[in-house]
């Protein structure tokens, strides 16, 4: 029997997703069972097993919402309200996305500048590198409130403090990747540049930069996802009114598990979209740089 190529290609993914959904439903039933049973017993109303099962999948505040509840809440959050309404997931996503993108841009820039400094000076390498590594050993959850409070005290509020936390996380992979990239040219090519008595600026622009491009995109993919995480984490300590982080926080305050999960789905969709954009840029650049098709 011959299968359609589309089936062959997608079958593994579909299978895994199906298995996950089944596991999720089973988990939802098991985790919500005592909750729902308790509800029936409190009301002292008789119930059948079927009603019990249905109850586990339609509870208002389940321990673990069933997939269809999460999807329903997500779709409702995206399409059910005007994009500017405070209950719209689009609104919150845009708030978080703007902080993410600004933070990502700042972080990528800082990462590249640090990498350039490190590559061009051994003294800087020795003095900067330990601090750069240390900076990532402190949990961001502990740092974020301090940042927000300190920046708030000097009058910085809203977008910028969140972006700074995003940048703080996202510069690191870019620095590490670009140091590797800038130092990766073939020694023979370095020798060639020397025989042409190229200036160090020429070596940078004609040899080191092009060599570093694949490393750049690899680190940008890491950077943009942790940028998003940084922005969400930064929304938590302030009890911000808007943003995916704010939705998560509000959801956990009021036990709105479905809201938490739909906000998580929104974050995942956002992250996938961001990665897809970076990957697209990577492909386009690779094509222009003569990569094999």
């Amino acid at each position: 029997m011959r299968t359609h190529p589309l089936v062959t290609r997608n079958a593994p993914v579909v299978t895994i997703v199906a298995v996950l959904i089944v596991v999720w439903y089973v988990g939802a039933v098991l985790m919500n069972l005592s909750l729902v049973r308790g509800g029936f017993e409190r009301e002292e109303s008789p119930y059948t097993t079927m009603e019990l099962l249905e109850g586990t999948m339609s509870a208002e505040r389940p321990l673990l919402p069933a997939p269809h509840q999460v999807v329903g809440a997500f779709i409702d959050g995206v399409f059910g309200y005007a994009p500017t309404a405070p209950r719209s997931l689009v609104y919150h996503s845009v708030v978080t996305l703007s902080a993410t993108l600004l933070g990502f841009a700042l972080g990528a820039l800082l990462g590249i500048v640090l990498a350039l400094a490190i590559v061009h000076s051994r003294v800087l390498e020795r003095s900067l590198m330990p601090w750069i590594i240390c900076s990532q050993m402190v949990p961001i959850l502990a740092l974020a409130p301090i940042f927000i409070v300190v920046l708030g005290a000097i009058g910085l509020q809203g977008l910028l403090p969140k972006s700074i936390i995003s940048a703080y996380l996202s510069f690191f992979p870019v620095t590490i990747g670009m140091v590797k990239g800038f130092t990766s040219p073939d020694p023979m090519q370095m020798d060639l540049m020397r025989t042409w008595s190229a200036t160090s600026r020429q070596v940078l622009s004609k040899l080191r930069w092009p060599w570093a491009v694949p490393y750049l995109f690899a680190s940008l993919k890491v950077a943009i996802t942790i940028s998003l995480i940084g922005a969400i984490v930064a929304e938590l300590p302030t009890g911000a009114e808007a943003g995916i982080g704010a939705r998560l926080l509000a959801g956990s305050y009021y036990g709105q598990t479905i809201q938490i999960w739909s906000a998580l789905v929104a974050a995942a969709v956002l992250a996938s979209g961001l990665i897809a954009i970076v990957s697209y840029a990577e492909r386009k650049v690779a094509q222009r740089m003569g990569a094999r098709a």
Partner: protein
Amino acid sequence: MPRPAGLIGPEGLAGLRDPLVEPVRMNSTADVEPHIYQSTVTRPVAVDVSKVSLTFDTADGKVEALSNVDLQIGGGEFVSFIGPSGCGKTTLLRVIADLQQPSSGTVTVNGMSAEQARLGRNYGYVFQAPALFPWRSIEANLKLPLELMGFSPTEQKQRAARYLELVNLIGFERKFPWQLSGGMQQRVSIARALSFDPELLLMDEPFGALDEIVRDHLNEQLLQLWAKTRKTVLFVTHSIPEAVFLSTRIVVMSPRPGRITDVIDCNFPRDRTLEIRETPEFMAIAQRVRTGLRAGHSYDE
């Protein structure tokens, strides 16, 4: 440092100078009789290596890569360096190119110190591998040194076209390096080394990674190129037939310490073809190179 516009093209250089054999000064530690050749100098000395030694500090102690090497190469010569691994032939070429500094002794290239010559872009260097820049098209690869040296865009384009023609690669301008065979890539790297019209061409086993057939073919092309452009060529090789076929002079080197053990004249006509490899004269020179290599080589290691 941009070179003056309107340089004579490679074909324009032909006939300006005569091929000749330069005298050689030899000062070797080997027990081979030194050969002093009669000087018929009409072109200035291109490369003068005088009492050059170079010692590397390695984990296993000091390694004498070059020991008291003396050599003079005249303009327009084609000099091959041959010897077993570790005899310092590549190191010597790198010292001449100022890619490595000697521990003692002096190197003069076109009357300048090796460093001045490098800064003045007096030589083109061809490595074992083509070392093309993979993100640049063939044409852009050829233009790279010209960009660095500040040639005008029109001049860059003209030169790229001219030198691609010289190595028979017209039509491949838009291709990327991975789309070319190894031999074609190495021809691009030779064109690139010539593109800014240096007097001197330094080649470090340029055909070492290629198969015999391609190698023969490129050897013939290189000879034609040399005859056309009248460059001075310094050529490192492992292959005796290659050295004898290409050279006006063969420098035989031996290891531990790296030194010159013999310098052999090899004056076949400039328009030699591969057929000369069957002649007794060719065999005789090849035999002498082989003897020289054996003398400097201790097999009991």
